[in-house]
């Protein structure tokens, strides 16, 4: 059992500001259902450009819910400039601390805030040149860098505790170590990466077909659904939903959270699944 502070328990049992603001000034969704935690943050500004109201919806464990609740309390009344300076450590401190293994919950809150502010300012959400390091949980190099710098992390285990990166298949441990080494080496540029063997289009389509057949279709069929591969254009995988999926309101969630996740995991991390326009 996790040793949560009374404050974490209190915010989990009586979370503040649950919900969604209509017509928000800033909105962000981070995490995914596959990863085990996800947070949707919305906020509204007043006439003085201060955050008047903030609300959250969170899928996740007790500390994820408590961190979200704490985040909304912290940022209320702040200007965007003040809110930008909020770190994951501020969220953890507000709760009287989080177990080491749960620090990623506070990082999730900080990421949502950062993206919601960017959204409010109309800036693009992702900086160019980001690279996904941990494919299991979709964590980028920039997210790992920020967590390492702000929290003075020195080991892969700490990076996993704070960002989840490296907590799945462990294949990215070498890359994470590389990021840590680079940061503490005073920012020496990384040696040019060896390019990943590139799939030919035919190979890619074949792998997508195989993955759908082996890993995806059986699960959907159990629920009376199905999908067909219609086309592959670059990294866009166009599919059509069939059976129960075709009439299901949550099929988007299945496509993103399950189909896309599986294809990214097993074929190529840059694939995007889209439904055939009807």
């Amino acid at each position, binding site marked *: 059992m996790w040793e949560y502070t009374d404050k974490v328990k209190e915010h989990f049992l009586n979370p503040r500001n649950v919900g969604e603001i209509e017509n928000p000034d800033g909105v962000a969704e981070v995490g995914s*259902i596959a990863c085990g935690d996800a947070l949707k943050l919305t906020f509204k500004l007043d006439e003085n450009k201060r955050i008047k109201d903030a609300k959250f919806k969170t*899928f996740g464990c007790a500390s994820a819910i408590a961190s979200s609740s704490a985040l909304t309390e912290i940022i209320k009344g702040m200007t965007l400039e003040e809110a930008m300076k909020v770190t994951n450590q501020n969220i953890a401190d507000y709760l009287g601390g989080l177990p080491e293994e749960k620090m990623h919950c506070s990082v999730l809150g900080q990421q949502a805030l950062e993206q919601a502010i960017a959204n409010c300012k109309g800036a693009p959400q992702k900086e160019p040149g980001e690279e996904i390091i941990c494919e299991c949980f979709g964590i980028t190099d920039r997210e790992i860098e920020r967590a390492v710098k702000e929290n003075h992390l020195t080991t892969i285990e700490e990076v996993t505790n704070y960002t989840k990166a490296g907590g799945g298949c462990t294949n990215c441990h070498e890359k994470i170590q590389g990021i840590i080494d680079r940061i503490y080496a005073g920012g020496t540029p990384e040696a040019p990466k060896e390019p990943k063997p590139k799939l030919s289009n035919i190979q890619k389509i074949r792998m997508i077909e195989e993955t759908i057949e082996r890993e995806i279709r059986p699960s959907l069929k159990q629920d009376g659904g199905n999908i067909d591969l219609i086309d592959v254009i670059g990294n866009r995988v166009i599919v059509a939903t069939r059976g129960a*999926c075709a009439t299901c309101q949550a099929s988007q969630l299945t496509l993103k959270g399950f189909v896309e996740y599986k294809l990214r995991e097993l074929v190529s991390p840059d694939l995007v699944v889209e439904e055939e326009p009807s």
Partner: protein
Amino acid sequence: MKTIYLDNNATSQVAPAVLEAMLPYFHELYGNPSSMHSFGGQVSKTIRDARENVAALIGAEPDEIIFTSCGTESNNTAILSALAVNPDKRHIVTSRVEHPAVKVLCEHLKEKGCRITELAVDSEGRLELEEYENSLSKDTAIVSLMWANNETGVIFPVEEAAGLARERGILFHTDAVQAAGKIPINTRGNTIDMLSLSGHKLHAPKGVGVLYVRKGTKFSPFLIGGHQEKGRRGGTENTASIVALGKACELAGGNMETENTRVKYLRDKLEKSLLETIPNSRVNGDRMNRLPNTTNISFEFVEGEGILLLMDQFNICASSGSACTSGSLQPSHVLRAMGVPFTMAHGSVRFSLSVYNTEEEIDFVIEKLPPIIERLREMSPYWKAESSVCGIRDTETQ
């Protein structure tokens, strides 16, 4: 508030009669059964009785029972023994859903150069016997397959699997820690060579286990030392716990019918009511071949840790296969092996009952759990109350 304990696959309470039986061996009858004096020697007689009781529960001879410290030790002993007595064979067949006491040991042995076949299971957690048969080779030293799964309760056809191994002269071990006392086990009627039991899963204390080794099976000890257990497991006997396990096995034999009638009825009532009242919920695992006391239910779009902590407010104890509670970042290896969708895997809760549960307790859980799920779903960004989402067979009948 009264504790409602529905986590008996994790551990179980020591039965009152078991506690009573073991207590004298701490204080009054503390002698060493190996001693020459009658003060110690009298204890060896009680150990003999305990051995007979354990043997009776699984249809074995007393000589085939080796007392160990836990299920993990029994599993380690069995697999390492098979490798020791078959020095020219380096292949192990096991499954993807084994308990860590087998799974992690096999991963460790893989690093040491063994070849490991981890058999897949289908979406109901069932084994494909044909795939199993095809995996057996001349190089196979041992097969280790669990009798019943700790997370889902799904029962593997281990007796049939043991027969196929025997035809090829391959040793067969089963981790029967969850099955013992809940479903009949009769080693006379099968060809299983080694079988593991654990005391604390059947109302004996923690810290005692058993490895059954069929007469005539080549064996190499794991703990080397004194002559105890006929030289097959060194170390002074844990007399009080061995006496306790003997008593617990005697009780388990008598309770087997209750397990399969009253406990099963309570489990079924709990499962049926929760599936009916909570939309987007489903049972993980083959409902036809399952332990009578276990149900693993997934509640979509919520996370297991939150469910457990909110149930904890009512002193209801259960387990979850969610990432947050498994101590890793991924949901349970058992649910992943079954291909349970992520939307479901994180929100899984295992209830495991015992003969000590009452209908009032089950009714209390049936009353308290639906609002808990609803409360967490209202917080979840994925939950839309009106949506009927795929992946759901909520009220599907068996």
